[in-house]
């Protein structure tokens, strides 16, 4: 008989998203924390620094003079073999773009928390997914959270994933600025020794690092054929990360008793005819609408994309097979397609399916506006008319139309 481990909880606290993220940092014990405070993640930096001031966390703190330097400190420390943490948002992410690309290209397992925010201009210190979708091709792994407990848990999984010897890629832990960073929820705090044990498999991993005994150079000024080889290996690691996240999450569930579905969360999709696809905090509103529609006998479900990069194409195709229509609710804009980013990617992903499933796109929550139940109701109605083959609009801006 298999031994069943009962998940144990050190204490239950009421934390906002920033504090939960900071507590995750505390549990993962990075060697270096390099942050420039930026709304809406400022309290996270304050909390981490407080942990260091109290002697709870033995990490080197860097008050960098700009985000690009902040991430460059992480690159240096990570290349020397250290575990690093950085947090930012929006304009900060834009300012560190050059270092952002190098972190992934050099295969350095930096973990970055992103309290996602709208990109300027128009100027607005407001919530959105625009910042992390803009850098989606930077080669990082991007995991999007829906709740406060999920932020803490994802931080722990992120270090395990990033430092895995088969992956060695930086990870973004994204959570909606304001909607999650300042949302206060019940959070179960795991024991420190349980997290230590969970991270043990990657603690002793021998990855290439800068040291005097065996001097290495990174990034190597590359001759052409090697450039292609390293790009290929990077792409391969991205592909491997999909299954790796599932494995890590399974193990996480055994130890801590919680799971978020791995790459995607399927909510009441089994017999659903219409599936809404979403990412991040607004998924909660969609789940509420799905519940109320289910009570009326409508077969509606929702899929939450948790792993945005690499894109969980295989699992999505499997989950969307045989559905009559798909509605994608995006909190971002893909310029050039005039849709949301997920809309465009879902359309590409379902090309693998034999049937032609109509996809409708919805843009909601831009500029920190609320993705309300009324908006989601309209989105489901439009998706239903697509399922019935009635004429409908492909992209709807729910704030405006």
């Amino acid at each position: 008989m298999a031994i069943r481990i009962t998940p144990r909880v050190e204490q239950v606290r009421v934390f906002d998203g920033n504090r939960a993220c900071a507590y995750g940092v505390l549990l993962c014990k990075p060697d270096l924390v390099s942050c420039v405070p930026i709304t809406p993640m400022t309290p996270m930096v304050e909390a981490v620094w407080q942990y260091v001031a109290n002697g709870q966390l033995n990490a080197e703190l860097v008050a960098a003079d700009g985000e690009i330097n902040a991430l460059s400190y992480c690159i240096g420390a990570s290349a020397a073999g250290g575990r690093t943490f950085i947090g930012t948002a929006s304009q900060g992410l834009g300012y560190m773009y050059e270092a952002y690309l190098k972190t992934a290209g050099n295969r350095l397992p930096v973990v970055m928390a992103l309290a996602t925010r709208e990109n300027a201009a128009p100027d607005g210190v407001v919530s959105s997914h625009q910042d992390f979708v803009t850098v989606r091709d930077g080669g990082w792994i991007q995991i999007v959270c829906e709740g406060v407990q999920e932020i803490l848990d994802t931080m722990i999984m992120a270090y395990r994933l990033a430092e895995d010897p088969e992956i060695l890629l930086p990870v973004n832990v994204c959570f909606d600025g304001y909607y999650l960073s300042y949302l206060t929820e019940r959070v179960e705090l795991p024991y420190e020794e349980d997290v230590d044990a969970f991270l043990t498999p990657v603690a002793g991993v021998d990855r290439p690092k800068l040291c005097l005994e065996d001097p290495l150079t990174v990034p190597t000024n590359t001759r052409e054929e090697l450039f292609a080889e390293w790009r290929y290996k990077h792409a391969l690691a991205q592909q491997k990360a999909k299954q790796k996240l599932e494995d890590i999450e399974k193990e996480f569930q055994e130890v801590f008793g919680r799971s978020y579905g791995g790459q995607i969360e399927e909510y009441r999709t089994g017999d659903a005819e219409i599936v809404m696809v979403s990412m991040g905090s607004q998924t909660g509103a969609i789940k509420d609408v799905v519940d109320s529609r289910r009570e009326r006998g409508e077969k509606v479900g929702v899929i939450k994309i948790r792993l945005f990069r690499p894109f969980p194409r295989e699992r999505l195709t499997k989950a969307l097979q045989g559905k009559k229509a798909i509605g994608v609710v995006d909190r971002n804009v893909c310029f050039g397609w005039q849709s949301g980013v997920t809309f465009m990617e879902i359309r590409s992903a379902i090309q693998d399916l034999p049937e032609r499933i109509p996809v409708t796109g919805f843009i909601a929550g831009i500029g920190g506006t609320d993705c309300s139940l009324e908006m989601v109701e309209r989105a489901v109605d439009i998706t239903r008319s697509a399922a019935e083959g009635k004429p409908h609009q492909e992209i709807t801006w729910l704030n405006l139309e």
Partner: protein
Amino acid sequence: MVQYRSEYEGPWASAKPVLFAYPTADWRATRPVFNITKCGHCGICYLQCPVGSVKDMDTYCEADLSYCKGCGLCARECPNDAITMVREEAR
């Protein structure tokens, strides 16, 4: 079948052939000449050299001409005036 040439997952390589094998200073116009009897082995030239070409020889210092670009900083900073810059002859 993909053939790999690098043993590393990313753009990492041993620094030894890159840093210690290729001479990188054959375009130098002037070179430092170290007078080792004057040299006090203070290490200022060792610390100041922008390319790290000064070698510690236990009782004195000397430039490794494979890497020295001839900037003259060591000669300028040497407190014992043990270093003089001389023009490289035309090759």
